[in-house]
């Protein structure tokens, strides 16, 4: 792939001739108002990597583009335009939660679940790779793979996203098993808290789950134009994607590690020491 070709990385630097970099705006006192107050997510492109998104649900709003990962004639995963919508409801719910927090984002859908029986992870890998190439600001992944052979390629894609300033927001698995990409440090990993404020986050000093967002007892759109009330890390992840979209719309220059810094700064459980 041509996009994989890159110049030699800079390994050495002349201190005297170092390029000046326009740093991000950074307040002395970080709070939620600074981070996302007044933001509607305008200008931010969010990708929902899931079971598809129902295109005509009034609470989800427009889906700018929908693609799906499907096997081609030789059986290789390929990305095609998708008109299937959502056979399960899950992707629709995630898109709706993101829209509820960040009403002006652009939502696009990459369907990686549906065709394959018992998710092999191959479609997820191909879909994520494609999404990173598209340069989305936020990629919502309420999914993970338990396939060990996928960890190396998944990590490579997650790191590529990190360096390209694409934020992968990934759901932690709530069972005693290892899955990825949420365990990688280059993504924002999300578990659920049972508070009632959808923009409240908590920081976890004992990773691999780094942050918690509201994930319990949430009202969300579902198939057939209806709504349900549901809980789980999937939906905490969608809320976190909405929060990240609000932050990125208001502070578009922030790199992924700075967004993590903002999340730490606004986390409800982090006490500040006077400087």
């Amino acid at each position, binding site marked *: 792939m041509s996009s994989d070709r890159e110049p030699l990385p800079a390994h050495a630097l002349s201190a005297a001739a170092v390029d000046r970099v326009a740093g991000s705006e950074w307040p002395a006192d970080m709070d939620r108002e600074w981070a996302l107050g007044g933001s509607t997510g305008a200008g931010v492109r969010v990708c929902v990597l899931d079971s598809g998104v129902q295109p005509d649900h009034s609470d989800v709003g427009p889906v700018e583009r929908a693609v799906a990962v499907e096997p081609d004639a030789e059986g290789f995963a390929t990305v095609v335009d998708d008109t299937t919508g959502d056979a*399960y409801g899950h992707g629709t719910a995630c898109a709706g939660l993101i829209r509820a927090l960040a009403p002006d984002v652009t939502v696009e859908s990459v369907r990686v679940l549906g065709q394959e029986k018992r998710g092999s992870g191959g479609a997820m890998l191909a879909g994520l790779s494609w999404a990173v190439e598209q340069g989305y600001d936020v990629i919502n992944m309420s999914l993970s793979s338990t396939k*060990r052979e996928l960890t190396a390629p998944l990590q490579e894609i997650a790191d590529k996203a990190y360096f390209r300033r694409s934020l992968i927001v990934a759901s932690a698995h709530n069972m005693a098993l290892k899955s990825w990409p949420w365990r990688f440090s280059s993504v924002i990993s999300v578990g659920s808290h049972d508070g009632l404020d959808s923009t409240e986050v908590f920081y976890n000093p004992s990773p691999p789950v780094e942050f918690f967002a509201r994930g319990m007892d949430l009202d969300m759109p*579902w198939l057939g134009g209806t709504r*349900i009330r549901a*809980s789980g890390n999937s939906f905490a992840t969608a809320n976190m994607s909405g929060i990240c979209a609000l932050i990125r719309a208001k502070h578009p220059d922030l790199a992924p590690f700075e967004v993590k810094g903002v999340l730490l700064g606004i986390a409800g459980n982090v006490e500040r020491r006077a400087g």
Partner: protein
Amino acid sequence: MSGERLRAAVAASSLAGAGAHDDLLRSIVETARAIFRARASSITLYDEEADQLEFRAVAGEGSDRLVGRRFPASEGVAGWVVRSGEAMVIDDVGADPRFSREVAESTGYVPRGLMAVPLVREERVLGVLSVLDRPADERFTAAEMQLLGRFASQAAIALDIVESARGARALLEADADAALVARVAVALDTLQGERREAGRRLLAALEDVLGDP
């Protein structure tokens, strides 16, 4: 038949029978139903070839008629759980007619709420543990979420054991040689004292004869 599969089949023949395995799964769904104070709970097994889920154990509503029944895994909440390997907790299904039909077809009644978790072993989703209609007026808590995950991990181990034994029993039925070896193993196991020692010597001698090229 490979040596490993033969050993598994012989081992299975001396293990508890199918009845005990069914009891194990049933006790798991009964416990799940009790700890979540739910109206029903079930374990379904995923049949990848047919892309269907089959009820293996049911507690509460539907326990008298659902075991053995199948429904498609190509849609719905359980289908999503199989394909994604992730849990799903729906506190209130609302008015979704599609949801109602899907669940009603597979359970015989329409619940208000549903928790479904994948039963995963060795990177594979074996099936789904479902808990229907916990008390709807109580909010789902983080503690319950943790408990559900732990419980599903335990249920997955049980389902794996039961299915492995079932596979081994099927092998024995299909392979007359393996069945003979299994019967001999069981017969030896039931002998005691001198008779057992004589049987062991006889088998050792047989092994020498058969193993001699």
